[in-house]
């Protein structure tokens, strides 16, 4: 199976919609020779930039000279960038004038060091936003914000908006995530990579050995939620929904996620709830648990995603790609991925989640039908091939 950066666009022929790979190759021919530069604060760690690990080599294969630069700074810069990211997401932060000055100075240092020059320069997220101050002439610059900018901390946004407006455009994941800015706003949704370790096909044998290693038996239908053990992801609400279902169906609940950061964690409460019920399995996942998540999602009968607040939440697409119906909350981009009554259900309450789970367990033919519809929905809308096409369209449109 294709892995790592040497994956070619041709490898996606078996998973992409028919004609899509040929079309992308033709688009690449049309744009051959253009220069595309990405700048972000990191190559990993969430926020939507990881997909560049796969997209950048493919863009280069297509003849589009693509570079991916990383801004660097001291501990102060990292702390400020982290606080600014949270503040823009609407989580109240203390951000002083000195912190912003530090951000600006570090950005100017990085602009001098990197000198990003291309036909299109895409700056990802909050940390490198101020890099635009040091832009040289020529080429289009766009700011790609991956999160929800609909309700930022207002004082912070007032300070940063003038910088966002120095770009030639801004790219958001959803219309309702977009902040009002005076430059054109484009929409590009996130995607999943069907050839990644998280989403690649897996043999039954490998799946069984992964589940054995995780100590997850398969003798009962599995309800799965993947997400951090934090209040915002409502694992206790999922436990309560499971308990309502358990009165009628013999199922097992698996809650899998990373251990919580300081504050807001509910891992102890979840463990306490699980300690009285052997059919609740709480899995603390290791760092980068791609293979484990792949196996768990394939083993699940129904996947639940019940965050109270999230960004696009592309985990939903990852579960649907494995042919699973998803019951999700209305947070973030979940309603944009779940087609109600076709690929799953969106719900507002614990009772609503339980009702939909019971409905699916009581009508098992629906599980298969919705799972198949979900996989097809992802194939057409949320694969990396669509994402690549969107980037090529942006490059063609802005550099025409």
């Amino acid at each position, binding site marked *: 199976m294709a892995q790592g950066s040497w994956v070619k666009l041709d490898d996606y022929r078996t998973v992409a*919609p*028919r*004609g*899509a790979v*040929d*079309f992308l*190759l*033709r*688009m690449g021919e*049309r744009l051959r020779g253009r220069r595309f530069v990405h700048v972000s604060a990191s190559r990993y760690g969430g926020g939507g930039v990881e997909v560049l690990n796969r997209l950048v080599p493919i863009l280069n294969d297509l003849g589009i000279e693509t570079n991916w630069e990383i801004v660097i700074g001291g501990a102060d810069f990292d702390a400020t960038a982290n606080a600014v990211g949270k503040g823009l997401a609407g989580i109240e932060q203390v951000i002083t004038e000195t912190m912003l000055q530090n951000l600006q100075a570090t950005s100017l240092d990085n602009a001098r060091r990197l000198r990003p020059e291309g036909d299109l320069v895409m700056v990802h997220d909050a940390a490198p936003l101020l890099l635009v101050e040091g832009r040289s002439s020529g080429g289009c610059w766009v700011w790609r914000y991956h999160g929800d900018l609909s309700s930022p901390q207002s004082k912070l946004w007032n300070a940063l908006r003038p910088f966002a407006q120095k770009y030639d455009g801004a790219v*958001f994941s959803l*219309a*309702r995530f*977009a902040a*009002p800015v005076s430059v*054109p*706003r*484009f*929409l590009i949704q996130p995607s999943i990579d069907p050839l990644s370790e998280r989403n690649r096909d897996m043999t039954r044998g490998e799946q069984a050995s992964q589940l054995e290693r995780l100590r997850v038996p398969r003798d009962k239908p599995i309800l799965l939620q993947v997400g951090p053990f934090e209040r915002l992801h409502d694992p206790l609400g999922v436990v309560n929904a499971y308990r309502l279902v358990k009165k009628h169906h013999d199922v097992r609940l698996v809650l899998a996620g990373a251990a919580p950061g300081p504050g807001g964690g509910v891992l102890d409460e979840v463990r306490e709830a699980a300690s009285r019920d052997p059919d609740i399995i709480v899995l603390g996942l290791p760092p980068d648990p791609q293979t484990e998540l792949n196996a768990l999602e394939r083993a699940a009968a129904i996947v639940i995603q019940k965050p109270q607040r999230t960004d696009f939440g592309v985990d939903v697409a990852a579960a649907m790609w494995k042919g699973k119906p998803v019951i999700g909350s209305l947070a973030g981009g979940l309603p944009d991925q779940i*087609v109600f009554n*076709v*690929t799953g259900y969106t719900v507002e309450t614990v009772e609503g989640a339980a009702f939909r789970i019971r409905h699916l367990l009581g009508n098992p033919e629906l599980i298969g039908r919705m799972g198949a*519809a979900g996989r*097809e*929905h992802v194939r*057409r*809308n949320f694969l990396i091939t669509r994402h690549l*096409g*969107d980037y*090529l*369209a*942006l490059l*063609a*449109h802005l550099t025409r």
Partner: protein
Amino acid sequence: MSTAQPFVFHGCAELRELLGYEAHDAHELLGQVQRVPVESIFCHTAGFLLQRVVIAEAYPNDFALWTATELRDRRLTERLAAVDPFQSGSVEAVRAELVSTIEDHLQHLSAAPARTQGEPFRFFRTHLVPVPTGHQARTLREFRDSLAEVDASALFFHIIEARYRLERGRGDFAEWIDTALGLADLATRLGHIDPYAGSLERIRDRHLSVLNRALEEERG
């Protein structure tokens, strides 16, 4: 070997741009429909086909979908759903029909129009980037084979974009089949396929079944 001018299949990449117009009720919707660039009307009455949903939505344009889900105004929804871009002649004519439909609806309301408690209607426009797919055809068989393989956006470009925005009559497929291959009856049959079949893949399937039948008839 046919001497017909080949049909060159073009697909299109789509880039969505969010405009600064929003509506929270039917009255605001009317004002914004009158105001937005014409490309936005095209986007909301045809562009959804490029979004590739897995089901045929109950209503065939974004305006009707929004009044159904957010305003829960069934009467307005049904009337907006009946606006047919392929009969209207131009995108501006569609705008005029939308405006007169909403105006008439508002005039007959006995109370203030319902206001969304959830999502406002946000206006977009679509930038299309046409790209040759590399497929071309000189014969009916080659045409059928290419149509089965091309990216679905080629159906949007040659049928929806051609007929509706570029006002090229019955669309590029029917036009070529008639003028280059001299198959007027087949062109008429293709021209009668409802572009609102629900998705581009369904439109493709309907074209392929008409073409397959024609090829069987040709074989005798």
